């Protein structure tokens, strides 16, 4: 469902181009739960940004669900992100002035869903992540684990095909991290949403059914199929 072919990303330096990703070919099937691992500077975040349509590849093609999505305009990319992709970040990125349900409803807002239906859907998703009693709380009133659950609810409220998680447990203590991982695994199993998760943590990566390892901008081993 996710396919990258010959994807490279270069950044222009004064005298030469620096390759961050080189000729990455990779495919992820629908419903897979992949860990993207590799040392700092290996290009994990860049790859995640490319898949998340927050950045454009210098060369190569990218398709999600058979749709060619690389090289779209900023406007088209935003529309595709809204429809196809949910993001979870290390630092949650909840908007401090919005309540939990309002944060969760953001993707629906940009889809033009009426306000009352937004609220319904957001509250249902908050209940699904175990926060039915926190819908009206502001982010400042939530613990780290609760915040990340709100962020996961936000990522999934629009029923995306793909969930991209960038160090989702990086700001949490180990117990909470385990809970959040369990939640992601459960949602992967129940909703069938494809998850690509960047992580440093070897144990966490090992708990994922599939691992994609990056080093110096290249995928180690065979990016196609299971490692």
């Amino acid at each position: 469902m996710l396919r990258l072919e010959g994807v490279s990303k270069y950044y222009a330096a004064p005298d030469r181009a620096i390759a961050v990703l080189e000729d990455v070919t990779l495919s992820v099937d629908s419903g897979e739960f992949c860990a993207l691992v590799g040392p700092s500077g290996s290009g994990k975040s860049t790859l995640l940004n490319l898949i998340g349509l927050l950045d454009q590849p210098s060369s190569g093609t990218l398709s999600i669900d058979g749709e060619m999505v690389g090289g779209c305009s900023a406007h088209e990319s935003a529309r595709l992100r809204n429809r196809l992709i949910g993001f979870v970040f290390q630092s949650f990125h909840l908007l401090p002035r919005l309540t939990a349900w309002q944060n969760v409803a953001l993707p629906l807002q940009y889809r033009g869903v009426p306000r009352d239906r937004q609220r319904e859907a957001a509250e249902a998703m908050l209940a699904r992540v175990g926060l039915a009693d926190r819908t009206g709380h502001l982010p400042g009133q939530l613990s780290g684990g609760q915040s990340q659950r709100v962020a996961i609810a936000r990522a999934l409220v629009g029923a995306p095909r793909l969930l991209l998680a960038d160090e989702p447990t990086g700001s949490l203590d180990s117990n909470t991290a385990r809970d959040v991982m369990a939640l992601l695994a459960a949602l992967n199993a129940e909703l069938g949403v494809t998850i690509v998760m960047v992580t440093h943590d070897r144990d966490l990566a090992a708990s994922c059914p599939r691992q994609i390892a990056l080093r110096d901008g290249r995928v180690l081993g065979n990016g196609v199929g299971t490692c």
Partner: protein
Amino acid sequence: MLIALPGIHARLGDTLAEAWSNLRSQGRRSALALLGIMIGTASIIAMLNGGHMAQRESLKLFAKLGVDMLQVGAAPTGDRPALLSQAVIDALPRTDPDVVEAVPLAGGRAPARAGGKTVDLAILAAPPALATLANLRLASGRHPAAVEDCALSAVLGDAAARALSGPAAAIGPGSKVLIGSYGYTVVGVLAPLTPETLDPVDYNMAVLTPLGCAARIIPHGGPTGLLVRLRPGADTQAASERITARLTTPDAKLTVLDARSILRTMQEQKAVHSRMLTGIGAVSLLVGGIGVMNVMLMSVMERQREIGLRAATGATPTDIRLLFLVEAVLLTIAGGTIGSALGAAIAWAIAHSSGWDFDLAPWTLALGPAAAGGMGLVFGLYPAISASRLNPIEALRAD
């Protein structure tokens, strides 16, 4: 395009609600940015309403007579009396295309006596047409009829009648009054009148008599002035020149009071003040607009992570632009509304200190917020565009 079409109603509603809550959370800074907008709107609203009230006040000076009116007066140039030809005056409506009506006037002063009281009164001798032309309303009695052209009938001004009344006998219709050495019968008393610019005398302290035999109580008895009603919208300047040319005699120097010219002079004097206030208002609005731009740019800087997150969840550059633009416009409309209220208060103070009736032109109250909102649109555009151009990845990484 600023606004994306799909689901625009739901999204605009959300955008408005969010913009409002963002502004409230910025509180004091928003308020400071609005000072310039408030001062600008206030001075423009005060200026417009001040002008509006001044105009109403100056029109009041011509309420009875209207503005399509000339008053011609003749002053002697030598020893001979400055008499005007009544035949020429009577012929004016026929001979001049712009003249609707012309009423000859003769004036003088004489002592009036009744019941042992003597009062010095202005005498205005004129044909009965004056009553309708000058809109002279009666408190009691009637005006002399046309057939009484030489009768000893008089209409007294309100104050004149009261001055002649004694404790025993009030002067009113039917009373006898000795004017000069002639016994006149009072046929009517005028209602109190507010003196106006083009009144030939203060009607309140005057006695009005028919023109026919006015020579009995005023020297020479012939007309030394006239009131002319012109066709509405006539060129008063040209008409007054033609009339002067027709009436001119070697014995008289003619002076014409022209309602429109008087109004114009009054308005020109005010225009200087208006221009000054408009200038202050415009500069304040400009400074306020720059202040709003500054606040919005700071807000964009501080909210980079929010912008990045919104972009990640599917906000298009258009959505981001709209969010910041709506904030800027809401901010300035709020300032414009407060400014309008302030301006109305200043207008009230101007009216109060000038002794005018307070009256607001309703359209000016809508203009304040609208003009301020326009400033928000103009000065909010650059911050909004720079927000929409942020790279989402860098924005998410900002602290």
